């Protein structure tokens, strides 16, 4: 599929190979229920673990790390920092997210980094950045390296990434105002459904990243068109679900300390 890209870093497969085309499954209307039996406002089950790469047993040098699963979304994040930055005179820490899909993560194989990943990295810094007390670490840089091992639903993966990074940052002991919890919703048949999978292709999606203790929305993302009232309803519902996700992240952090 990426035959046009001149990829010299790896031994490439045939230039004109494409993934097989599957006959599209026709989704039932929302009223008939979701394919995996979830309720409309149920998220996929979350498994979050803080510290798998930074435990004493491994030899890694990450300050903090987290592994996050949400249904079949699997994300791993490692945080390095605070460490000395290249810009020596900055009054605030330089927070950078490096977001990457594993080549086998999405339904289409993509071995080289796309602009999508680059922009997501920038967007993640903007979304998780407000939670960090950057002014406590002058002249330093905090780097979060995220690898999506498996993705299932673009917005849902983004939301899961934010949760994973928050967990890893907290595991690294970086001073924060609050952990950021995020969740996404899709609009189908004029109903908002929480946490859409790739199969539940929604024509309009909303993602909200929220800090419950400080009551601040650090990130809003909407794709697709909808009226203002429906949009507000979606954001409100999303914020409520974020509070539940927040509880899960906090519990994972507590478990890592015990």
């Amino acid at each position, binding site marked *: *599929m990426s035959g046009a890209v001149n990829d010299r870093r790896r031994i490439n497969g045939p230039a004109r190979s*494409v*993934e097989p*085309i599957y006959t599209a499954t026709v989704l039932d209307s929302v009223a008939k229920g979701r394919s995996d039996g979830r309720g409309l406002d149920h998220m996929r089950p979350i498994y979050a673990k803080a510290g798998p790469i930074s435990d004493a047993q491994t030899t890694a040098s990450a300050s903090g790390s987290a592994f996050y699963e949400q249904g079949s979304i699997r994300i791993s994040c490692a945080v390095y920092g605070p460490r000395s930055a290249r810009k020596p005179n900055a009054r605030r820490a330089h*927070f950078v997210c490096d977001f990457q899909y594993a080549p086998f993560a999405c339904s*289409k194989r993509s071995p080289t980094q796309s*602009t*999508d990943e*680059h*922009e997501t990295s*920038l*967007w993640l*810094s*903007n*979304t998780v*950045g*407000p939670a960090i007390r*950057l002014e406590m670490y002058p002249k330093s840089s905090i780097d979060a390296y995220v690898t999506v091992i498996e993705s299932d639903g673009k917005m849902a993966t983004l939301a899961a990434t934010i949760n994973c990074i928050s967990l890893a940052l907290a595991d690294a002991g970086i001073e924060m105002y609050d952990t950021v919890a995020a969740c996404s919703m899709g609009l189908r048949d004029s109903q908002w459904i929480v946490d859409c999978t790739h199969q539940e292709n929604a*024509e*309009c999606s*909303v993602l909200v*990243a*929220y*800090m419950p203790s*400080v*009551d*601040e*929305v*650090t*990130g*809003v*993302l*909407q*794709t*697709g*068109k*909808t*009226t*203002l009232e429906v*949009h*507000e309803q979606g*954001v*409100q519902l999303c*914020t409520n679900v974020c509070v539940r996700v927040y509880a899960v992240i906090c519990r994972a952090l507590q478990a890592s300390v015990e």
Partner: protein
Amino acid sequence: MTSLILSPSEQDFITRGVEKGFRADGRGSLDRREVTLRTNMISQANGSARCRIGHLGLGTDVLVGIKAEVNTWTPGEPESLGSIVCNVECSPSAAQEFEGRGAEDLNVELTQTLDRMFNGPQSGIDMAKLCIIPKQAYWVLHVDALVLDVKGGIVDALVWATRAALLSTKLPRVVVESIADEDGNLQSEFDVVDDAEDQVAIEGVENLPLSVTFNQIGKRFVIDASEQEEAVTQASLTVAVSPQLEICAVQKGGFLRGFPPSLLSEIMQTARRVARDEFAKFKELYETAASNQMGDEPSTGSTFLGAF
């Protein structure tokens, strides 16, 4: 954006002014600077527009060119839809740090912002009408934006220019011939009519959105921040609104703080209100720009640069 260094007292002055409703250039918090719009200046492109927000010499200047190309369908792509590909490039003439790879981050961010607003059904364009022959050929609209000058409010300038450019785009007419062969299958071929007079507009361009960017400074927000105001901005929210006042895209920028949900709600309401006026203003400017092309003005040099 450009790294404008402001002293702490200047930052404080701007912040406190905004909180009391005063801005350095005397505007109200919901007032946009003057907008200048010109269309169809690039003869090689199917559509083009140049938008400047702010007055001559102190404004954000964006040039957008639309080129339509025919693409061959490959398995895996949607079978009967066209496509819009956006690309934003910040010219090094806009700021010194855009030289070389300095503008790469900004280019990527702006490209994805435009893509989120325009590539797909949410833009209002009938993507199905851009398909020439299903599973065979479709139109690709390349939206190439060049940022010539940055003085704050770049996303809005990009969206205004892109909307004007797409409105002014004329696609060559395509004639499709289908013949049934021996097995009863339909073989289709198309021909692009090479006549400058026989061109069609893109279906659905009247539904394209406009964007409003809100910058939060202190406890209040402003629209169309100048360079200085952007240097003091802690968080920003870009809202794209369609002429039917639907929300097409929402994106939050700025890594220093978030919005309380109540402020977020207030901003969204304001966005819809402001968008109503902005569409009226855009229509007026666009019609002036479109009518100016028919005059006896020379087509090079002075009108492009000087009179703009």
